[in-house]
């Protein structure tokens, strides 16, 4: 068995998952000598001990020190054939995504869960791809790209960020950006982030995540051998708008930072809340970060072009804050997927000082060899068109995009109000967090009768979180599916999610109207 999987397995415990992973949980907990809880749980209810446990017991035997008592608890499981497979059996429903997408299908529910658009990329993007490969255009982007980034794309990105960061007053000695050493591309931001964390983290290093966080972060940290440290955004219920409702307590953040902290992952505009970090907050973060020279900020900015008030609340990159105060400590990441409605093309990038970009490239070249060429080549063209040419009556494509999403946001806000929810209106991105405390539904019935292996607390026999139960009920009874945000919190703070749900509005107008109709049918 491989350490990557072990690390990943440990992660899964956070959002529950399946028995086999509980075996790993057993290991983790026994190391902390909290043996009885999980092992008793195994033996008492929910499922018969499986072979996974047997494997875990063999791991425990071979693993050192603290295993004397856990040995006893795990040998209660029947012996079964050893091997990798059993430990990983049954992982077909391991995450919130794999629970709610099939559930939505099963109940023919309108799926406002997963965050990808249900329309085609704009025509100029599709045409760009055609030019990349159709021989009549002579680009012929069919062979290996330069490993660190397809050069035409790196060149456009360097120009793009140089231009943008000049306007953000990044000091001129840091510009222009060098496309050969300060840009890395990979298979979407997920892959950029994976490579960066693999390249930066040593076992035991801490990574600070602001809760709620995109759930993929924590698993990637675990795979790299790092330890997640969580800092929740605290809700200010008196405020209006996601940016102000979800507040960052800088003192709390400071308390989470130490010389052990290697990475802070920032995400603005923020998934799932729609918060955009303002100048003051970013300044505060930069001041803290600059106290720790070993600390790297990874700034995930994939929703940078889906912002609703570019005049009063423009997108800000922390790399540029305070004249580039922490530019040397920041990797800025973004991708084409959200901006050009082509999440399946998987083109993402990192921009920053070469010593950090190298963390990405040095892993990426062995993980992928090189990212896909045709998609990179098409995005290189699309980025230029999007910035330079008018689109559908708007000065640029980006203006059109923001306007289109603003309209969709309003449709979903209206729909949620019908359902008696209070939408926390997002300032960026394409999700709405709704306050659901006034929605009346049979919480206890759902929690007591339905089984979810993916929910937080499953491993420890906790009651199904309210948001999880509500999302199941909404899917089954009302016919609209959302994602329960407790999937985006650690166990310690998961209660913060109880009265919220995340709805996506990256959906066609008719889909959003249908959702509203279903709410009307049920709630009015």
């Amino acid at each position: 068995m491989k350490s990557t999987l072990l690390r990943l397995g440990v992660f899964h415990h956070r959002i529950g998952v399946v028995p086999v992973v509980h075996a790993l949980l057993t290991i983790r907990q026994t190391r902390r000598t909290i043996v009885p809880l999980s092992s008793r749980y195994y033996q008492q209810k929910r499922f018969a001990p499986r072979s996974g446990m047997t494997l875990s017991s063999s791991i425990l035997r071979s693993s050192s020190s603290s295993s004397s008592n856990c040995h006893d608890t795990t040998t209660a499981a029947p012996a079964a054939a050893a091997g990798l497979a059993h430990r990983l059996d049954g992982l077909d429903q391991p995450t919130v995504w794999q629970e709610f997408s099939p559930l939505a299908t099963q109940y023919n529910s309108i799926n406002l869960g997963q965050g990808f658009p249900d329309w085609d990329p704009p025509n100029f993007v599709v045409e760009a791809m055609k030019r990349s490969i159709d021989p009549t255009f002579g680009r012929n982007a069919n062979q290996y790209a330069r490993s660190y980034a397809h050069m035409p794309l790196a060149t456009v990105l360097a120009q793009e960020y140089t231009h943008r960061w000049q306007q953000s007053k990044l000091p001129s000695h840091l510009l222009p950006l060098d496309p050969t050493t300060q840009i890395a591309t990979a298979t979407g931001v997920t892959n950029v982030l994976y490579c960066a964390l693999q390249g930066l983290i040593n076992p035991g290093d801490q990574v600070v995540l602001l809760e709620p966080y995109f759930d993929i972060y924590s698993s990637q940290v675990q795979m790299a051998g790092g330890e997640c440290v969580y800092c929740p955004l605290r809700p200010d219920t008196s405020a209006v708008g996601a940016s102000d409702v979800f507040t960052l307590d800088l003192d709390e953040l400071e308390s989470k930072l130490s010389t052990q902290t290697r990475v802070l992952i920032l995400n603005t505009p923020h998934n799932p809340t729609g918060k955009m970090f303002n100048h003051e907050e970013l300044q505060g973060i930069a001041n803290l970060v600059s106290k720790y020279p070993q600390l790297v900020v990874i700034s995930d900015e994939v929703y940078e072009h889906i912002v609703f008030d570019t005049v009063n609340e423009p997108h800000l990159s922390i790399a540029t804050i305070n004249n580039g105060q922490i530019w040397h400590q920041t990797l800025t990441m973004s991708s084409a997927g959200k901006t050009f409605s082509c999440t399946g093309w998987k083109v993402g990038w990192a921009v920053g000082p070469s010593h950090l970009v190298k963390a990405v490239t040095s892993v990426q070249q062995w993980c992928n060899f090189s990212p896909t060429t045709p998609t990179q080549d098409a995005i290189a063209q699309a980025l230029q068109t999007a910035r330079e040419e008018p689109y559908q009556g708007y000065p640029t494509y980006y203006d059109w995009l923001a306007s289109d999403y603003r309209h969709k946001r309003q449709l979903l806000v209206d729909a949620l109000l019908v359902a008696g929810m209070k939408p926390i209106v997002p300032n960026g991105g394409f999700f709405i967090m709704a306050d659901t405390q006034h929605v009346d539904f049979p919480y206890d019935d759902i929690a007591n009768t339905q089984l979810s292996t993916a929910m937080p607390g499953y491993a420890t026999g906790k009651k199904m979180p309210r948001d999880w139960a509500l999302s199941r009920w909404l899917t089954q009874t009302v016919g609209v599916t959302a994602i329960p945000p407790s999937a985006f919190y650690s166990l310690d703070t998961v209660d913060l999610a109880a009265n919220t749900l995340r709805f996506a509005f990256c959906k066609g107008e008719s889909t959003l109207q249908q959702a509203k109709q279903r709410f009307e049918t049920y709630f009015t």
Partner: protein
Amino acid sequence: MFQSTALLAVICIYITQSWSSAFQPSSRKQCLSRPGATKESQLRTLVQSVSRQSGDDSTSASSSADDGIAFSPGEATIRLGLSTGPTVWTEFGRIAQEFDPVNLGQGFPDWLPPKFAVDSLVEAVLDSAQSPHQYTRPAGHPNLVQQLARRYSIHMKRDIHPMDEIAVTVGASQALYLSLQTLIKPGDEVVLFEPFFDLYVNQVHLAGGTPVFVPLYFEPYDDQIEGEVSGGEWKLDRRELMKFVSPKTKAIILNSPHNPTGKVFTRSEMETIAESLDLAGPACVVLSDEVYKYIVHAPPKEQFTSDSPLCAGHTHFASLPGMWDRTITISSAGKTFSATGWQVGWCIGPRRLIGPIHQLLPYVQFCASTVIQEALARSLPRADEPYEGHSSYYEYLKDKYTKKRDLLVNALTNAGFAVPDYQRTPGGGFFIFARAGNAIVDLIPPKYLMAKNPAAPGGVARQDWALCQWMAEEIGLLCIPSSPFFSMVKAEEGASDSFIRVAFCKNDETIEAAAKALERLKTMEVGAGKSSNATIASTGDVK
């Protein structure tokens, strides 16, 4: 051990040569005085220095203005060690740029994919009914895994389950990377046949494993004629293999057809590998990299009933008795469809081996590019149809490569290189592992031989490297030296000295231009290149 030693030695050379700034002198001294030490902390600092120094790019080694700051490497980078420094690829990439030789170096075709493949991609892009533009299933786009299952069920003569027994990855490189990531834990051993595709070694390091090199040995046809060298065959010595496989072995990487030698492993060699698994534990898996399987240009004489009717001359290792359960079969679209940039690869195997890969995929990238996967799914059935006078595209491809191979064989033989006799020796892939005759070796100007070069294995340009560098800079033909495909020990024994890797996945005009450049070697006299600034105004007439 020898690896770490060599690695540190190279780092030391590198630092003494070129280090100039903020590196701490104490660590430097440590390194110089204790080249055998492998303490992690030392390695960390050393890697840090090397990674700062290396021009990290095949197109530019420009120093960036942004940095006074050292890259502080994480676990993965430390495991890679020297691999973040310059490599044969960055060095010969630089030479290619600077001297503009005819390039038979890197292994990608310089022609378009077949029209049906390009059409498939264009059609997929424009198909707004299917709209393959958003995320797809992380384990593999359903349309593609269905197609792959169809083909592999025929290859393997068993029903391959599209959802459970196939994982789609970003090229075969990632298929191998993820296989190793799921199988290997720190300290596990991975057997590589030497010479090996250099990517393997770094991927093994990244997984925390230890590469163990099992040498293939070169058996010349006839080296009796004085002053001449002959072609020959690379063979697997059963005793060597059995010597290195042990319960510590968690994976054996097999690559047939083989890069860089072009060797096609014989049935009995594959059976030997299967037998060697008895010496390893039950957890040991064969990773069978078969990306060149449709380019078996010199098929073995003997055919086996278990071989796939769709893939003449190639034996899928997993089709050997009992081997399905012990094998992850790895392949990709790049070589077959002359579309190396599409980067769609896959793992095929029993669910106990594929399941863990499925588990990692969502976190490594969520999914491989949907639109490219869809294009490949559409291409696969079209490749079975008659193509340009051949019964299928695969037949056409093999024929095309056979002709190119013959062009290159003639050019190399004519210039005094010994190459395999493909009437006698099976061959596949698109490289010739050519053996330099004595007459050619004598021509290499001394300034190239044993010159210090941080990109070369061991930090010095051995004969194969010197020959390739000289030819690229002064003769106008770029080939790849063989030493980077060998372990340091074997290279230092001289196993790689006579061999260079020459690619024939190039247009006929390119190969003919290469032949012309090679002609020069015949007319040169020993010592002709010795004048130190004899940069022949080279390539204008041959390119």
